[in-house]
């Protein structure tokens, strides 16, 4: 299964380029295109109304707009329920509802985004291609960085937890074993790594993130950077290239979108700088056609025509 991420500054045409590419690929393979941008417009591009559910628009092309807020809410509700079960006694005082404040935790949106991608990769195995239309640069870089950052933290926490369990083991070994029916004066703590809920949870999280990191950095993953021929877009794209490089994510194509006769000179300059910023990465130009404004053609048609058989 191949995975494509379309990324870039807000408003450069990521969704349209992603939609056109998905449409093109769907002529020879089964494709799921998923919009992760909170400001969805995938449905508008294809002229269909999409809810949170998948919608098949041809035998080989399926669309989906992910409701990130709902994902974040579902995740927190699940965690709040686990907390409520652990601290069940608080129900007596009617205080358990106060855990609901967790939904305002920062960083949850990025996590929801990553969870959504992880779930799609794990569950949508019927497709040959997964195309993700991502939110604007800032959020995209943050969620793509999340697996690496999290793994670093998890590794450190696992190391400390293992040390704690070692200490507990030492303590239990020095103390004599309990006689039958004897009540210890002090709580005897579990020292077996298999019995420690925190260590178990950390190990599960680590294996999930290692796997996801492997997929995101692997041969089957492609990041496509879309930009426009203007300085703002150029600067943000440069930062994105730098960010992707730091994270070890595979940028394999750049698309200079919305090029017209008026901004062609600027397009040349921007493309030269981008080629220097990301040497060796293929670059495609997609012109902005007058036909669009006259209603003679659709954005989708234009991009498909101009991109040729790129995918």
């Amino acid at each position, binding site marked *: 299964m191949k995975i494509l991420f379309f990324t870039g500054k807000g408003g450069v045409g990521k969704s349209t380029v992603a939609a056109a590419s998905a449409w093109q690929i769907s002529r020879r393979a089964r494709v799921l295109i998923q919009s992760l941008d909170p400001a969805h417009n995938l449905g508008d591009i294809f002229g269909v109304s999409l809810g949170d559910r998948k919608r098949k628009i041809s035998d080989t092309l399926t669309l989906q707009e992910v409701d990130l807020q709902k994902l974040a809410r579902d*995740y*927190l509700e699940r*965690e709040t329920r*686990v*907390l409520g*079960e*652990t*601290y069940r006694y608080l129900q007596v005082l009617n205080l358990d509802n106060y855990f609901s404040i*967790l939904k305002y*935790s*920062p*960083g*949850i949106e*990025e*996590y929801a985004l990553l969870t959504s991608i992880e779930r799609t990769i794990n569950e949508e195995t019927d497709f040959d291609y997964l195309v993700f239309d991502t939110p604007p640069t800032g959020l995209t870089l943050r969620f793509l960085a*999340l697996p690496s*950052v*999290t793994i670093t*933290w*998890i590794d*450190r*926490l696992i190391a*400390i*937890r293992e*040390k*704690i369990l070692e*200490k*507990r083991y*030492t*303590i239990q070994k*020095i*103390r*004599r074993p309990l006689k039958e029916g004897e009540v210890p004066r002090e709580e005897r*703590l579990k020292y077996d790594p298999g019995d420690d*809920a*925190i260590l178990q*949870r*950390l190990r599960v*999280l680590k294996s999930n993130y290692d796997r996801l990191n492997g997929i995101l950095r692997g041969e089957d993953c492609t990041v496509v950077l879309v930009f426009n021929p203007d300085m703002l877009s150029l600067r943000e794209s440069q930062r994105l290239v730098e960010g992707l490089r730091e994270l070890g994510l595979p940028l394999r194509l750049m698309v200079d979108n919305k090029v017209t006769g008026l901004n062609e000179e600027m397009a040349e300059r921007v493309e030269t700088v981008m080629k220097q910023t990301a040497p060796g990465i293929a670059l495609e130009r997609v012109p902005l056609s007058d036909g669009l404004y006259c209603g003679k053609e659709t954005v989708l048609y234009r991009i498909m025509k101009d991109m040729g058989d790129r995918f």
Partner: protein
Amino acid sequence: MKLPVIPFIREILSRIHDTHRENAVALTKVEMEEMENIFALLVLGSFVGLPAPPTFLAVELLPFMERELKILGRRAEDAGDMLAEMCGTLGID
């Protein structure tokens, strides 16, 4: 009621033995609790203004951290007189 002598002596010896064992683990126990405190501080550091792991990681572990949270609270209370605390731990009068 007269207590049988031999079980009585055995009980005393067992208690002495236990006391020695407890003395032997005292420092390791303090060390372990400190590590649990550090663990809680790292996971829940954002509560006290420390750099913290991604929020969801803290949220994932929070349900299992009752003991660590109690230690964190106790250490925060004792933090006012750490010198006395350390002297007590190391048996310095």
